[in-house]
């Protein structure tokens, strides 16, 4: 558990660096997480994955299954892993501001 200062407001993170309160998310926050993950500036392709995960989460309250991400973005799984080297569950969900997914990936 850690709290970081972001644009003047405090932001709670869990021990793996996931956002605790999803409401605080914004595109600037996503960019901040992307730098934490070592991704640099987010490209359109990153955004496609992040937005898909974000919208799914807002609609259903859970992270999407990996199959769903692959299908909706049209990217191959391997390509998603090159976009987010720590994986769709860890990396992409973190950037999309979701709490840490349960499950083992």
């Amino acid at each position: 558990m850690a709290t970081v200062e972001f644009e003047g407001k405090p932001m709670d993170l869990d021990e793996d660096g996931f956002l605790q309160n999803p409401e605080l998310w914004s595109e600037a926050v996503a960019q901040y997480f992307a730098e934490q993950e070592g991704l640099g500036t987010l490209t359109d392709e990153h955004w496609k994955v992040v937005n898909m995960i974000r919208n799914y989460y807002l609609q259903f309250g859970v992270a999407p299954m990996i199959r769903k991400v692959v299908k909706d973005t049209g990217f191959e799984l391997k390509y998603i892993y090159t976009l987010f080297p720590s994986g769709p569950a860890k990396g992409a969900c973190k950037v999309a501001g979701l709490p840490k997914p349960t499950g083992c990936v």
Partner: protein
Amino acid sequence: MLMVQLACPKCGFVIEQYGAEQLETDAQKQKRYQYLRKKQSLCPSCLTQTAKLEERRVELEAPPQAELMAEAEAPPEARAEGEAATPTPFCDELERGPWPSHVTELKQTRYHMQMYEEGLRQKRTQWGFGGYTSIPGVASGILMRASARPDIAKGANLVRAFCPSGTFYSTKTFRALCDVADRHGYGILHLHATTCDIEVLGVPKEELRATVDELVAAGLDVGSTGDAYRNCQECIGPLRCEMVLVDSVAMRQAYFTRFLDDVQYPRFPHKIKFKLSGCPNDCTRSQQKGDIAIVGVFRDPPRIDEARLDDWVKNGGDLAHVVRMCPTRAMEWDGRRLTIDADACVRCMYCINKCPAIRPGGDRGVAVLAGGKMRGKYGPLQPFLIAPLVPAIPPDFKEVFDLCAKITDVYDEHARRKERLGDFIYRTGIDEFCRLVGVAPTPQQMVAPRINPFYHWTPEELQASRKEA
């Protein structure tokens, strides 16, 4: 250290224990403790149902702290010596017998002997839960095990890699593998863990990347954890065995050629284990242990070599016994001629294993079964037969693996999160599942593909076979 133990009142087995101090400060521990106090439990040691666990307070000697602290700070090489200096009376006991001792071996590695020692002293492992982790770029292949005794050892990671097909290593590869384990891990390899994986134990987090890179450089692919296709275990079939019906080793090679991405990038609802057996003897226990089992089978009835049969009977072969033991009574022997009723015979391999004059019949292929497992929601399940005979055509075995891919696609599309393939089929029903996969229903889906006659060799027979060899 004062410990509070909850034990079985009948046999005294310690079911859980907590540090007394910890119990006072840690709310979660308190909750668990209260819960266990009230709950009816089954003692894992003597299997009695107990309404109430016995509570005991015992003073356990704390492990010699000073030395352990020194050990944690020392570099790995020095650590091994530090370990040896700490007394390990329980472990030492295991070195006394007349047989080679694993403790002697372990002491030469960087394994934390005190973890083992404490485990033996308290009769339960001091390691904690395990799980998968990943590092950037390596999605599958790294496991971690937490420590319940961080005062002795921090958690450890292990790296999984695939053994070469047929489990034949070149000495060069094997040396490289040992070097990696020595350089980065405890210096222990777990060779051919449950799914035929190589496991390099005790790799610190900072060295995971280097370990993976060096294994890959040695020609060993890393993977086989998480919700992915796992390693594929095959029987030694064509390399050693006379029973073999399909080339199981080539098939494993084809599996990796085709599915390496699915193995290394987890995406399924749960793990999917593959096993390949060259014949219905099923030496890889594919039907019990593989989510997808591929078993070599034959359609024509067993072939009888008349001349060889005469020889075998003359030399004391007990054919009458074999005929009697055929599980479906498909054989008939009038003292002169042996016949096998092709319709009654279930191709169980019993007579073929027993009598060298009876050989598997023609028209060979593989049966594909799905859903076998030991764990999961509905407990252990035997697999469901999906297709009784699929042609197995080298080099890529396209028909077989197309069907497997279809099965896992349906699973991926329809199963719930963390639902094993067997549980999924059990929940949807085999008819619905077959409709989704697109295979025609056949009578064989309803009958067991092999009935095990549980034949056990007698000591005399074993002696005789040793003499022959």
